[in-house]
């Protein structure tokens, strides 16, 4: 089976994967709700961290718990929990991210049986000196909470090993993203998305092995056909494979992204340090931020987005706005202005838990056609 097919199947069947892993190892599985949760702590405790994803299907069970003008993702995740799709989870962790996902975490711990629930206070003011001084205490507290829950100490050696495994994962995914710089890119946007999404639900060493295999397979891959417009996707939590498929079917060649199921998840590494807690803290403080963690001083997202746009020779940018995602909606004018300075056009696509394929496809086609005529 083609390695990208393995990524796809693992992501599509992520609940089966986690159940099988649990049965095989006897370990615990913890769901996390934001990429600012330091997974390394869980991994070092022999826990499988899995990102909680929505199901992209109509649902009618979250309204008593989350106001329906909270973002689609926050409601879709809770729906999956209430529907029992994540019944194998032993615990859940949220970070101090957007207000919407905090609501998901609160409702989850109220209504879905779970033996461990943790709110990781990830400081949002990441640019401040104080955040660098104080986040290690939060990471230490998280470590202690996990130790108390499992009844086992997490050694520094185990943490260092977790950092190494995660760093390898990040490096390999970045290597594969490098292959998207060519024209046409060596892997499609859909394949890249499936690869990153699979990383979030798989045992990292298993995923690393697949990434090595992917690198080897891509060397042998003959030039593939791709859309003629090089597109960057910018947005929040973009796990909708169907949307990516529609984009690429409409003629886009998605070459890079600024998304938390993309570069924001793996772009920077943890620098190895004598204290693994410091390494982990610095890694999360310095990772490419989402708008929630980019609220003062010079916006760090600007450099990340423009560097990617330049290096990946991006022609246009699709801004994916999850309906009612306030942090991203508030940042759209700024992102558009940065890209405009570089003569890169933008298209804002608002999406919901489910999308209308025809409508979205038509908008993308129209946008790409206009670009074509402009050239």
């Amino acid at each position, binding site marked *: 089976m083609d390695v990208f097919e393995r990524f796809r199947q693992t992501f599509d069947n992520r609940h089966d994967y986690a159940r099988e892993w649990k049965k095989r190892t006897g370990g615990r599985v913890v769901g996390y709700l934001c990429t600012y949760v330091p997974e390394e702590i869980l991994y070092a405790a022999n826990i499988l961290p899995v990102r909680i994803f929505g199901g992209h299907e109509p649902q009618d069970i979250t*309204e*008593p*718990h*989350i*106001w329906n*003008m*909270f973002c689609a993702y926050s409601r879709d995740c809770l729906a999956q929990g209430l529907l029992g799709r994540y019944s194998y989870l032993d615990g859940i962790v949220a970070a*101090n991210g*957007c*207000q*919407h996902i*905090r*609501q998901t*975490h*609160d*409702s989850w*711990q*109220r209504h879905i049986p779970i033996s461990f629930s943790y*709110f990781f*206070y990830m*400081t*949002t*003011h990441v640019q*401040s*000196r*104080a*955040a660098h*001084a*104080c986040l290690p*205490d*939060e990471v230490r*507290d998280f470590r202690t909470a996990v130790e108390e829950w499992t009844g086992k100490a997490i050694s520094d050696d185990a943490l260092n090993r977790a950092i190494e495994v995660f760093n390898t994962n990040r490096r390999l995914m970045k290597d594969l993203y490098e292959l998207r710089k060519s024209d046409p890119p060596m892997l499609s946007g859909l394949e890249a998305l499936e690869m990153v999404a699979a990383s979030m639900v798989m045992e990292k060493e298993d995923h690393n092995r697949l990434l090595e295999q992917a690198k080897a397979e891509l060397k042998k891959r003959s030039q593939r056909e791709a859309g003629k417009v090089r597109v960057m996707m910018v947005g929040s939590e973009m796990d909708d494979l169907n949307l990516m498929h529609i984009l690429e079917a409409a003629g886009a060649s998605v070459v890079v992204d600024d998304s938390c199921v993309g570069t924001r998840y793996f772009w920077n590494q943890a620098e190895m340090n004598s204290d693994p807690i410091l390494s982990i803290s610095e890694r999360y403080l310095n990772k490419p931020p989402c*708008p*929630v963690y980019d*609220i*003062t001083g010079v*916006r760090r997202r600007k450099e990340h987005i423009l560097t990617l746009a330049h290096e990946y020779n991006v022609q246009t940018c699709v801004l994916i706005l999850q*309906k*009612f*995602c*306030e*942090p991203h*909606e*508030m*940042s*759209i*004018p*700024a992102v*558009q202005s940065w890209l405009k300075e570089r003569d890169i056009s933008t298209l804002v696509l608002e999406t919901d838990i489910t999308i209308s394929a025809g409508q979205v496809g038509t908008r993308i086609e129209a946008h790409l056609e206009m670009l074509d005529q402009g050239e």
Partner: protein
Amino acid sequence: MYTAEERGELLMFGGVGPLHALPSGIGTYHLIGSFGPNFGKVLDDYDLLTRSLDMCEQAGYGAGTCPSLRALLGSMMVGGFDSSDGKKTKIDFHLETALCQPQAQSAQIVAERHNAPFFLIEIPPTEKQSAFLIMQMNDFIEWLEKVTGRKYDDEKLITAVNNEWEVRVLWSRLCEQQKVVPAPLKLASLYSFMNLMWRSGRHRPETVEFYRLALDEVRHFVEEGIAAVSTERCRLMHEGSLTWYDSIITKYPERWGAVFTGSEMCFGSQGAWEVEENGCWKVAPTIGELGLEMRNRDEALAVLAKLYLQYAPGNQGFALLDRRIRNRTTIAKDWHIDGLVTNNDRACRGACLGNTETVISVKQEGIPAVSYDGACIDPRDFDDIAYKSQIETFLETTLGLTALYD
């Protein structure tokens, strides 16, 4: 305010939540709440308000973004931010707190537009993180001296911290009077009173004096049995932002003798409370009662951090939702509430965070609850007919009241 510069005083732009005492070491400063000096005027003028909102939307800030930002930024775009004679508002520095996350983002957007020196302080939820807050406050002081070119005076800080703590305690004592049946004040009056803290700042001696007088007066109402609404027979609690441009929310239920008498948002955002083990709110002790000493900057900042992290449960609720919901539920019981009304606002998520779970929690305590679709700042999104219909059904069918008058 517009003449502050002529008097050599400073103008600080900031939201409703900043640590008002903190900048005081630099000398007298005036506070422009994040809604700007003419915000009331904007909210009172339908045409101006909708023009402001439209303008902001044209700039790319859609209807799902923070409504306060849209009204503020929009009013700046249509010229509503400056004085009516066209005098420009010159901001010396901008301090905002990261508490309500969209509010922090709004501040960033406004600061970029103003090009004023901007400093953000994140207020964490618990005392465990006090070192984080204190370090940011120290950095702010250093920054403030640089951007204003003025020397920071620790004695002024100490006085301001004393004032801010006292104002918060006075506010809590005043809110505590609302437990009395019938209530001495309506929720709308409470918010009007609260406004002074947002506009003048909690750190000023005249603010302390005002709330001492206000508390005396409210206590007098209680002693004399004076009710805010003489026909009070049902006490309502409101969570989520009120509809600032229209008083219908609070006034309409009075036809049934139902009076809004409080809210966690109103009591908690400006007060100082000690939350007991069982979740009950007790007015916080004063600095003197706690025996806290402030002899230097470090001690003053530690006291200020204590106030915000130990005695401000309203702040905690943005991060720790379970506490917000528990707080609201205990307030509903302790303030003798007969029914909870929540505004599921179409854009202000910070204020309506936890509303849905609060409804479940409060109902479990045997207190009926209803939610309506509100729009605290955008009248184009508010359906007053639907609100009236919902509240009428709630009062008559759920609470069994009949209207006292049409």
